[in-house]
């Protein structure tokens, strides 16, 4: 068991999950409550990472972070190197890759909340921001937990994007999934098996959590 890779992977998953919950909430809120006629286009863009090959995403992220892009050049002038093949670059790639796994459960949960509850809160004198914390968050808790669990599990399981953007640098960008690949290449089947089982166990626990939550009766006020 490559513990360095293990902790790196956990760090990556935690960082990405933390950022995506903060980033994902406004997107999910907009998707749940907006009635813009072109909303479906945004929904499609958000869902792209589910169907695109990781290499496509990895490729675009690499190009965006690398020396060929204005952003990449700017970053290089600031720090002396590009974001490609760094942990931070992995984080950026993973955020895009796991976006739908954070946004969709959240949006689904939020859209199940009766908009009249928000009206009631406003009429009772509570500001939009405080309504968010006093009404929206508690009522979308199951969506929040689902989003966190799925994002974490999905990030832990990344391979293609991580490989392309990260470059398999030990201690920096060699995650567990890449580690298994290396071990198989080295014909070290025993080690590969251990690592794989660890990933299966973690994923299973997280998914059980997700499914247990979404089976339980949640007293969200029904939407008319």
């Amino acid at each position, binding site marked *: 068991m490559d513990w360095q890779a293990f902790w790196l992977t956990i760090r990556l998953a935690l960082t990405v999950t933390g950022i995506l919950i903060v980033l994902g909430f406004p997107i999910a809120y907009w998707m749940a409550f907006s009635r813009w006629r072109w909303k479906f286009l945004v929904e499609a863009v958000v869902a792209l990472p589910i169907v695109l090959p990781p290499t496509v995403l990895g490729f675009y992220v690499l190009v965006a972070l690398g020396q060929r892009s204005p952003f990449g050049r700017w970053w290089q002038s600031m720090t002396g190197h590009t974001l490609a093949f760094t942990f931070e670059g992995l984080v950026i790639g993973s955020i895009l890759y796991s976006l739908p796994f954070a946004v969709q459960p959240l949006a689904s949960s939020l859209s199940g909340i009766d908009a009249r509850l928000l009206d009631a809160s406003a009429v009772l*004198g*509570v500001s939009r921001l405080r309504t968010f914390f006093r009404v929206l968050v508690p009522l979308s808790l199951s969506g929040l937990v689902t989003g966190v669990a799925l994002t974490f599990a999905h990030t832990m399981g990344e391979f293609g994007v991580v490989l392309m953007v990260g470059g398999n640098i030990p201690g920096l960008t060699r995650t567990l999934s890449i580690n298994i690949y290396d071990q198989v290449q080295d014909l070290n089947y025993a080690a590969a098996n251990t690592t794989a089982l660890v990933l299966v166990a973690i994923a299973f626990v997280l998914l059980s959590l997700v499914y247990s939550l979404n089976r339980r009766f949640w007293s969200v006020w029904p939407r008319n």
Partner: protein
Amino acid sequence: MLSARVTDNSSAEQVQSSPDALTIRLRKKLSSSFGLDVDFALHRGITILFGASGAGKTTLLDCVAGLRAPDSGHISISGRVLFDSEKGVHLPATHRKVGYVFQDLALFPHLSVESNIAYGLSHLAAPERKQRVERTLEMMGIPSLGRRRPVQLSGGERQRAALARALVTDPSILLLDEPLAALDLPVRMKIADDLRRSIQNLRIPVIYVTHNRDEVFMLGENLTVLENGKISAQGTPHEVLSAPRGETVAQLAGFENIFDAQVASIHEERGTMTCCVGSARSESAQVSLETPLVRAQVGENLRVGISAGDVLLATSAPAGLSARNVLPGHLLSLSQRDAIIVARVDCGIELSVHLTLGTRDSLGLTPGLQVWVIVKTHSCHLLAR
């Protein structure tokens, strides 16, 4: 003569001088063909806003509460301006001090009844908040339900909780959107009674929206009728109903029969006139009815409403009656609704007639039977088109 002391859109001026007046003047497009265009004022006490579903009642309440903005207009309470399109004033809902009981109550499902009621009181210190909540729970007759969640309450209890939540913040206006609509029939009357007692002593304007006739009579001090987006009548229930104008009011007053009518001739000396009544579509299916005299000209198109309870039936040609309208026809159908029989009769026009169960049996009424329809002149109520 069509209207008694019933006023329409120009009543705003009269009430404006009253210190507690809620003035509402607004226009709002609701769909491509229909919009709200109202101008009226209310003072303290219960005003029933009556109208058919889809007439715009909820939108009107939402505009008063600040949840939606009218396209243009002016809303103010006791001189405090809530909305004015010309001056660009639009006070957000959070600052309007409006109590609103929504149609589906909108109680927060994740909070207890106590927390629901205390929700709008976060600006108060905890002890005072607790005290107010307890007092309100007592007042609403649900002192022991504080800890429960809304999902654990009955319909009537939920209603009371929602009202408590709206009142505890000491609002300057109270809005109730069909508060009894979600309740079962037997519960409704009891809750209506409790409601009346809770709100009749409030010294603020209360707008009570309903499309139910019984509630109008139980609760109404002032009645405002909304029809096609406009105020079609305003006054006490008695005033409004004793001289019905629009079709909504006619339905409110209980006219099961409403027909197109054209004035055929006027008999000033008798105080009556003759109208050709029938469906506008078929010229042949028309009858002549003698109706009370109203200010109208020959050839003018009106509508006439006849309450089903005002129509008599005879199984043999009647003679020596005081009624001026005796029409031969035949019985189309009979159906029972609770304790009355609804008979459909074709006498040139199709009328609904209400009879008792006993009548059906003693007269031996069956579909197809030849009958005579008897309608008094004054049972024919003329309505504006």
